[in-house]
């Protein structure tokens, strides 16, 4: 099991679980990152953070610190 932060660009992964609590976690789920959905890691920002992913057919950016909460396989 890995978290989303560790995934390299260009890979597609499936969400297993979202850790954490409160507003950030809810926000991540509200944006469509839920258990069982596929995420394509598209790129990393020029300064190394945040990352850009494709989820449910749209582009989303999130910080590595938040990506760490998303457990994928």
């Amino acid at each position, binding site marked *: 099991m890995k978290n989303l932060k560790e995934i390299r660009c260009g890979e597609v992964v499936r969400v297993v679980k979202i850790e954490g609590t409160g507003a950030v976690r809810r926000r991540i789920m509200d944006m469509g990152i839920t258990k069982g959905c596929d995420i394509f890691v598209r790129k990393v*920002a020029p300064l190394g953070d945040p990352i*850009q992913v494709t989820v449910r*057919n749209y*582009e989303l*950016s999130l910080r590595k610190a938040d990506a760490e909460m998303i457990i994928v396989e």
Partner: protein
Amino acid sequence: MSIKIGLAGNPNSGKTTLFNGLTGATQYVGNWPGVTVEKKSGKYRKNKEVEIVDLPGVYSLSPYTLEEVVTRRFILEDRPDAIINIIDATNIERNLYLTTQVLELGVPTVVALNMMDLIRKNGDTLDCKKLSKLLGCPVIEISALKGQGIDEVTQKAIELAKQRKSQEFTLPVMEEIKVSLSEIEKMIESSKVNINTPKRWLAIKLFERDEEVVKSLKLNHSVREKINQCIEQCEKVLDDDSESIITGERYAYIGNVVGQSVHKAKKGSDTTSDKIDKIVTNRILALPIFMVIMWLVYYISVSSLGTIVTDWTNDVLFGEMIQGNIQSFMETANVAPWLTALVVDGLIGGVGAVLGFVPQIMLLFLLLAILEDCGYMARVAFIMDRIFRRFGLSGKSFIPMLISSGCGVPGIMASRTLENDKDRKMTIMLTTFIPCGAKLPIIALFAGALFGGASWVAPTIYFMGIAMVIICGIILKHTSTFAGEVAPFVMELPSYHVPSAKGVLIHMWDRGKAFIIKAGTIIFVACGIIWFLQSFNWSLEMVDADQSILASIGGVIAPIFTPLGFGDWGAAIATVTGLIAKENVVATYGVIYGITDATEESADLLAMIAANFSTVSAYSFMAFNMLCAPCFAAIGAIRREMGSAK
């Protein structure tokens, strides 16, 4: 009978475009009660009995952000007669997520399906009828940009509003959840809470442990305990927490709906938007491209074109045409000299100072509106986030800070683009330390007079401003109001698209108008007062500046500045007039030393300054003027944007 229609939808779904199309020029902008979230409403163009309220752009109705709470409260408490929910068809899954939550609230809803032209262009198909049947509400295709279908949607909403039937929608869920939900529903019923909200919605919210709803229902302890047991049991069976169970169920339902109504052409290659993004946020090219764009914005609006129009309005339009003509008119009409002076120097001079900035600000807002509407602004945040996060800000704070180096007022106003309230307030506080363009003459004057124009003076003053931004950022990050969880930076990167001229112009005008009205009134009054103090003595006779009320006040307050090393009345007064506009500082010195048309380059003025200041006191004076309270116009803008003057 008047009808109230709420307009709900995700950010970037075309909601604002639709709102502008429906209401035209009748918009009223205010704030939602108690919060600084903007509330826009307007009358429907074709039927003045119909009021349309533009709700904040949200992705969900969770209790965590201000915008979402505002939207939810409006629907639940103000009970609009109908809701138009606008959806971006190219991004249908995430957009329907909000729809499932809106439908649950029981208000008659029409779904407006926007950007269908793009769906067709991609060769995909979307069955509107099927979608409508599955959701249990009318679905109408529109193009907000071209204004197609927008009247049909509104007609449908009015029709539904008149029928006064409540919306039926039940999110299908797994058996285990269904059992828990109906148990909670029973408990709500038995505790006889008198709320005209659908019980199913309340049950879901209680199941999610939504604090807002738990508080508002005021259930007694034993019922709450029972509900909790019920939730925990369900969580145990499904091995997940309740919030994520419900979110998962919603997306599962949406997946099913989309599967039945949308047919995708085979998964094709990158879209145009993806191709643009490949270059614009490329690891190597992103920063250079970003700098070029920012330089262009700055160059066009602040240094080149902007200065030309501003100088023209200040010197020609106000200076010669209006001021000059009114002066000669009043003189020929034999008006008392003091009244002429009040009108010409005090009021027109003052208003001119404000209005002179208008063209520059409009130009700036125009460029920003273009960047925002085409989707680049989100990329700016994406690129700059790393740097700004260190001060507890997000990448979006960059734009206001950059603009502030030209003028603080539009900089503060540009903070509007930050949707997070905490970020916005912090950005506003910090932008005021950025040395603005109007402070440049002060630096030039003193650097020229005492430091022989040494090249290190200006940069050190600038760095001092930037250092202040960083220090204050770190301090603010740790103060009570701003401490705690960093605002989540989970941000959509919308597809690029060509912005519509109308949309951009409305955007620009909205902000520009606010500037003129709010900043204008404050500067106007302040100029009148300072002019008065500067032109009269205590027995209300017109005198020269050095015998005026202002001078005597300056003498009294000067000792305050003595510790800073510039305790003569002139410096004190210059600081005070600098509060109105930093441009005044140099001019004030001109008046004080009796030099006409003083600029930072006049030799007389340079000599006088050199005689009156030591190098240390001069540097101190510059630093103080750089870092003390901003000018009145900026204070006015801060007050407007923060809802307080602190």
